[in-house]
Each structure stands twice: as structure tokens, then as C-alpha cells.
């Protein structure tokens, strides 16, 4: 039951790309083609799953004072590894992802999951959460890539920066519209939306 919620949250109810608005920078920057989107989506998924798993494993070893630097260290190590692996296996992809590959380090989604969940939960739940959130992010990234690449044949704007913002805005509107319809059919009330948001994007008074 617990794992089912984790999956539903990651893929739909609290999708990182559409609801939590985490990892916006790569989402918009790398969604100009499907190939780039798939490449960065996989890299992010890889880093997220392993970082969630390893942070869950070391969760008893870190205390408040060194929590943040330790997490950043874990994520940076994994990102550098992903960078090296992509260079080794698909150099053109490495070139077209540019700085957004190393910037996985600062993807708020990854640090966010570490802070919100992995530092408290056991290995299985943390890994599953990483997989679910990462897959949710991957799917939004790839669909955005597909929409933009397909539309850019007729509308040049779709391939350019404004097109990225507008396309994601439209996707979110679609998600909200579908969510509203779904609400009517669900018997149980919506999960509490006052989730603890990570400090990286929180709205500051």
C-alpha cells in the first residue's frame, strides 16, 4: 500500500515536473529534442535512484550539522560518474547536453528527495521513491521533448526558449484539468497538498 502511494505520487499526483516544479532548468533546456530528453532523463533517473539508495544507507551516519554537505557530496559524486559514463558510451550526447549534464548536481529534485524522504526511510522505500519520482520526471521531460520536436516543424517558436516555457505551462494546465475530472471519481479525498516543500524552492515570506 505504501509503495503504491509512492508510485502514484511520483508519476501523477505529485509529479516532480508538473506539480512540484523541481528540476525546471533541465526540463526546459534539454527538451528541444527527444534524443536529448531521453539522454538527460536517464542520467537524472540514474543519479536519483542511486543517491536515494545510498543516502538511505548512510542515514544513521550523518547528523544535522553535516547533512547538507554530505548529501551534496553524494550527488556530485554520482553526477560526475554519470558524466564520465556518458562520455565513454555516447560522446555526441555528452556534447549536446552541454552543461546540463554536470548541472544534475543542482537539480532540486534530487536534493529534495534526499531531504524529504531518503534520509528517514529504509532502503526499499527510498529506492522505489527515487525510481517513481525519476520516472515521473523522465516522462514529463520526454513528452515535452516529443511535443516540441514535433511542433517545431510547423511552428518555429516551439524549438526556441519561449516555446519551452509555453509548452510546459500548457502541460501543467492539462494535468490540472485532468486532475479536476479525476477528483470527481475518486472516493477518498486528495492527499494533503501541504507537503513539506524543500527549502530550495520554497516560497519565502
Amino acid at each position: 500500500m505504501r509503495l503504491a502511494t509512492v508510485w502514484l505520487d511520483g508519476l501523477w499526483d505529485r509529479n516532480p515536473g508538473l506539480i512540484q516544479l523541481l528540476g525546471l532548468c533541465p526540463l526546459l533546456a534539454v527538451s528541444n529534442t527527444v534524443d536529448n530528453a531521453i539522454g538527460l532523463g536517464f542520467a537524472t533517473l540514474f543519479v536519483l535512484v542511486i543517491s536515494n539508495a545510498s543516502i538511505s544507507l548512510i542515514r544513521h551516519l550523518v547528523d544535522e550539522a553535516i547533512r547538507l554537505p554530505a548529501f551534496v557530496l553524494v550527488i556530485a559524486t554520482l553526477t560526475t560518474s554519470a558524466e564520465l559514463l556518458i562520455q565513454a558510451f555516447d560522446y555526441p550526447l555528452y556534447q549536446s547536453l552541454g552543461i546540463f549534464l554536470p548541472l544534475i548536481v543542482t537539480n532540486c529534485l534530487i536534493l529534495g528527495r534526499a531531504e524529504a524522504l531518503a534520509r528517514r526511510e529504509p532502503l526499499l522505500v527510498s529506492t522505489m521513491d527515487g525510481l517513481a519520482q525519476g520516472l515521473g520526471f523522465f516522462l514529463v521531460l520526454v513528452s515535452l521533448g516529443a511535443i516540441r520536436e514535433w511542433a517545431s516543424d510547423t511552428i518555429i517558436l516551439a524549438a526556441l526558449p519561449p516555446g519551452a516555457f509555453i509548452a510546459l505551462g500548457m502541460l501543467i494546465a492539462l494535468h490540472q484539468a485532468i486532475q479536476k475530472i479525476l477528483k470527481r471519481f475518486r472516493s477518498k479525498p486528495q492527499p494533503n497538498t501541504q507537503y513539506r516543500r524543500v527549502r530550495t524552492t520554497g516560497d519565502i515570506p
Partner: protein
Amino acid sequence: MTDLLLLIVSAALVNNFVLVQFLGLCPFMGVSSRIDSALGMSIATTFVLTLSSVAAYLLQSLLLIPLDVMWLRTLAFIVAIAVAVQFTELAVKKASPLLHSVLGIYLPLITTNCAVLGVALLNTNRAHTLAESVFYGIGAASGFSLVLILFAGVRERLQLADIPEPFRGASVALITAGFMALAFMGFSGMTRS
């Protein structure tokens, strides 16, 4: 000198960090609901961005290149940025408790602002000199601050608008940011480098 000024114009307007290069979007969406908080975030980011541009340059030319460990770049930079943020916080706290009470809350957010790491990486990718790194950092920061403050103003106004239900919240904010990026396309092609 002209080249350095053009570098600022390029990073601030033509290739605006937020709207064209998609860097620093999380604080752009997160901290832009009021002009005053946007202003605080801008000042803090400008400071850290310039500082970390210099730090990354020194780290690269004094440590990474001589030791031939360029592949540790990402790891080294993120640590340097974390240290720079920490240092800024301490310095501000000592120098002016008043300033610290205003900027303090923004400082921890900056470690994960991808514009900060982004500017360091771009500086090394483009093989900028020390002066170029500093000016590029200033340009990036002013571009970030400019759009953050303007966007905050627009969002204050949007809060009063009767927006159709599915578009409320993040959706209309992103589409409006898209229109802002559209307006910024007017600057495209302005610096010929």
C-alpha cells in the same frame, strides 16, 4: 573594456541566464511572488555569483589544471560554491546583523541555484580569463536580478486576475515567463561574438 561590457550585455540581456539559457529557474519561479523578496534574493545571488566566478577560476587555474584532474571539476566547484555561500553568510553576519536578517534566508537557497554552478562551468567551457569570469558573473547576476524583479511585479498583478481554473498557479506563471522570453528574443543577435 568594450569586450568586457559586451560580455555583461550578452549574459544579462541577449543570452539572459534565466529566459534564454534556462539557469536559475527554481528561485525564479519560487521567490518571485513579491518585488521585495525578489530584491533580497537578487542582491544575495549577485554577491555569491560574482564570488563563486572568481573562486571557480582560481580553483581551476591553481588546482585542477596543474594537477590534471579536470574530471573532478563538478565535484570541486560545488564544494567551492558551498564554501563561498557559507563564507558569505558568516561575513554578512559579522559585518551587519541587519543585512544578515534580510539576506540570511536566501543564502542557503543559493547553493542549489544552478545559475551559480552554471556560471562557473560556462566560464571554464569558454576559457574565460579572470576579468572575463568576473564580468560574466556580474552580467549573469544582473540578468537574473532583472528578470526576477520584473517577473515579481507581473506576478503581483496576476494575483488579482481572474485566470481560468486549469491555468491557475504554475501554469500561467510559466506561460507568462514564456512571453517574457519571447520579448527577450528582441535582443537576440545583438552581440556579435
